[in-house]
């Protein structure tokens, strides 16, 4: 199962990003292969509708779960529509690695 975690930068030592549509980077973690990849959010400066655009990518990537600080109303509606689990985490002092370790155990 693939999970997307919003990240402040590239690399597992980087901190978690509380924003979803406006997150700086995304970490995509696949628990079947234990593989972790990072990609930059190209919608970070969109004047409007960043959340919806990110959801489109999430769906295209076949992700089943997203972890972020919060989800805007439009992103939420779309994620619900495609049955993607939303996990809200409020701790922006955690690194991506810590979050992944956390749900591995």
């Amino acid at each position, binding site marked *: 199962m693939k999970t997307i975690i919003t990240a402040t930068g590239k690399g597992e030592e980087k901190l978690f990003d509380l924003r979803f549509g406006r997150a700086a980077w995304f970490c995509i973690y696949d628990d079947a292969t234990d593989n972790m990849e990072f990609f930059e959010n190209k*919608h970070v400066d*969109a*004047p*409007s*509708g*960043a959340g*919806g*655009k990110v*959801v*489109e990518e999430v*769906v*295209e990537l*076949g992700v089943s779960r997203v972890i972020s600080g919060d989800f805007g109303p*439009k992103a939420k509606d*779309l994620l619900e529509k*495609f049955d993607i689990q939303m996990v809200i985490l409020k701790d922006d002092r955690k690194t991506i690695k810590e979050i992944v370790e956390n749900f591995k155990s």
Partner: protein
Amino acid sequence: MSYKIAVCSGKGGTGKTTVAVNLFSTIQTKWTKNVQLIDCDVEEPNDLLFFKDAKVINRSIVNQLVPVIDESQCTFCGKCEEYCEFNAISIIPSVKYASVDPNMCHSCGACLHACKFGAIQEHQHPIGELTSFSRGNQMDILEGSLKIGSPMQTKIIKDLKANACDESDILIYDAPPGTSCPVVETVSAADFVILVTEPTPFGLYDLRLTVDLMKEMQKDFGIVVNKAGMGDREVYAYIKEEDIELLAEIPFNREYAGQYAQGKLLSDVPPLIEQEYLKLAIYLKNRMSHD
């Protein structure tokens, strides 16, 4: 043709509504009945709060054209999504999903142009309403209100301007705060603009932005200082330096502010304040005869 006056401010809470409502009332009682007040602050219209005797005489729905994608015709090529400046369109080819969010669409029509497969058609989508009110005079007050969530203030304001009473001698537009599109839309039709400010650093900062906007739009304008007596003198130094006409100074009066909060803006107006509105009305009358 009516003479059109817009009341703007930049900063919120300086007294646009106070000035617009009082000016309307002064003109109506002291000058001509042929005046209409148009509440263009469509996200939060509140002029009506001060006219408890006003009765609804007409209400109409404002619609916006919004594209609807026919998924059976759509090839999910994503061209329309690429054309959309407002990110209102979501296309997800892998799951054959195509949808338009009417709350983000600005009705520009670019997607219709982009689609080569005839999969997009426009439909009417309600975004708000116009209401006209009477206090014994058919043309008294016109109000626009936008539905929560819609970004199309300008569409409602355009309709307000188109529906204003042509036979009025004077139209008073109560503008929204700020200096963005809805304000530009409101001011664009005005013959004269009244900028309401307050003598505080915040009032001055936003006044500068609004003055710049007026200059860029090549509008004639003057300034009303509301809540005079509070804050500092910086705003006056700026007005002098820029050589802008100071039309009126409305003294700050705590008791009158309390009355405002109870919706009693037009009863027991302190004489010093009443006098300033009269001065403003006379200025406008002179201006109209010269323009």
